[in-house]
């Protein structure tokens, strides 16, 4: 009996944990996308007004963002600073490999971030602004979708985790 009780508690905890962690990903994604968006807005200012080199701009624009987003931008900046021959897109790709899971981003989000890196730093200020505005708009659409998904799925996965595990326990008992 004791074994059954311990097993049931374990199943409930495991199921709830799974549900909560999936829900957490849904909650984190729009939050991180919003943070990335604000970093890009800040990057636009660093490029347009202070005319800082890209690596410094990337480093500075992430100040004030949450840890995951800051790490993503600072890793990209460090990679560019340490190897002049590395292209921004390659640096973003390497940084995404390191931080993708922690950022809770989908493949579609990563594609937009890679697109963000594809022409970064190779245009004049005016064109760079236009390009970053385009990326900003795409990220805003993704953020909107992510918010809808968060509202729809986060509660559902939490309940599903708890209720599913309870159902498994009942079935097993």
């Amino acid at each position, binding site marked *: 009996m004791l074994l059954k009780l311990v097993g049931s508690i374990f199943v409930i905890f495991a199921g709830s944990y799974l549900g909560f962690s999936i829900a957490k990903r849904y909650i984190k994604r729009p939050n991180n996308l919003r943070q990335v968006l604000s970093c890009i807005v800040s990057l636009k200012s660093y490029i347009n007004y202070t005319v800082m*080199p890209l690596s410094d701009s990337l480093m500075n624009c992430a100040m004030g963002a949450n840890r995951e987003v800051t790490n993503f931008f600072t890793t990209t900046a460090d990679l560019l600073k340490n190897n002049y021959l590395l292209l921004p897109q390659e640096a973003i790709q390497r940084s995404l490999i390191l931080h993708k899971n922690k950022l809770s981003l989908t493949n579609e989000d990563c594609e937009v971030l890679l697109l963000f890196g594809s022409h970064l730093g190779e245009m004049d*200020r005016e064109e760079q602004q236009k390009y970053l505005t385009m990326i900003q708009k795409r990220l805003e659409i993704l953020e909107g979708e992510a918010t809808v998904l968060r509202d729809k799925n986060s509660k559902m996965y939490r309940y599903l985790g708890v209720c599913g595990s309870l159902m498994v326990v009942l079935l097993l008992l």
Partner: protein
Amino acid sequence: MIHILKKIERDIYPYLPFQITQLLQQVDEAALKNIIEIRLRTNRPLQLVLPNGSYAVQEHGKLSSDFQKGYICSEVDVTHTIQAMSKNSFYALEQELRMGYITLEGGHRVGIAGQAILNDGKLKAIKNISSMNIRISREVKNCAEPILSYLIDHHTRIFNTLIIAPPRCGKTTLLRDIVRSLGSGKINFSSVQVGVVDERSEITACKNGIPTLDIGDSVDVLDGCPKSTGILMLIRSMAPDVIVTDELGREEDVIALSEALHAGVSVITSVHGDCIENVRNRPYVKQLIEEKYFDRYVVLTDRPGIGTVREIISVKDETVLFSRKNDKGASLCC
């Protein structure tokens, strides 16, 4: 003084593609010490310009005058190099790129050529860059020492001086050492305040506005600022005794310079040309020559060696103070 090979390794190699760096590392050290330029052109051979001519670089760093056998630069080589030199920040070098050059840390100027984009008839940008000329900057300390006495009026003032020379004759190297000598009080002047308008960051090789070369203690540098604006700014804000700037040419430069000359500030500057007659035919600059704004002309040549002083002329009394014709074999500078 940093050895030129170390300087190349520190300032140039990090921007060059691996294959090119590897080839250059294998080039004979004696040749590399005298290097003047490294030229990269898309689909054409990599060239090293030495005092005795241009050479292609073959396998194992062997230099050859047969360009067909040399390493051929690919489009990727050139685009990656320019991308790296701009530190992936073309937007930060908009103005420089429009003028056809960027300057690396260490004061090395990189000339570029490619496809021009025009907007309302004016050059907006250069895209598809296909040629690059990396000019190696040198710091030759005390190279100005032999001519300094010609530039000073009985220890009371510094003469307004125009250095005249074609490209690759050591104008900037000489100017740099003049700045250092004046700024470090080497002459018997008490507290000469030197202002440098370093439009291309070549004279003082500034990084984040701070000079990376030894330029003396009494020198203020306005880095990356157009001469026309910078000269007037320095006069108003820093009260210099002498203003040093490089490569006159535009109308606005000449206007600013004549203002400085009338404001009681001495000016030492340079202009492209191989003799005074040539410079006299240049638009804008000819006005300064005709109206005898300067006190001294220093004419440089690259024969027999870069930085050789051909003539020093006193303008007001029209006398030749020094001439290589009179003083055979004397090479004063660099």
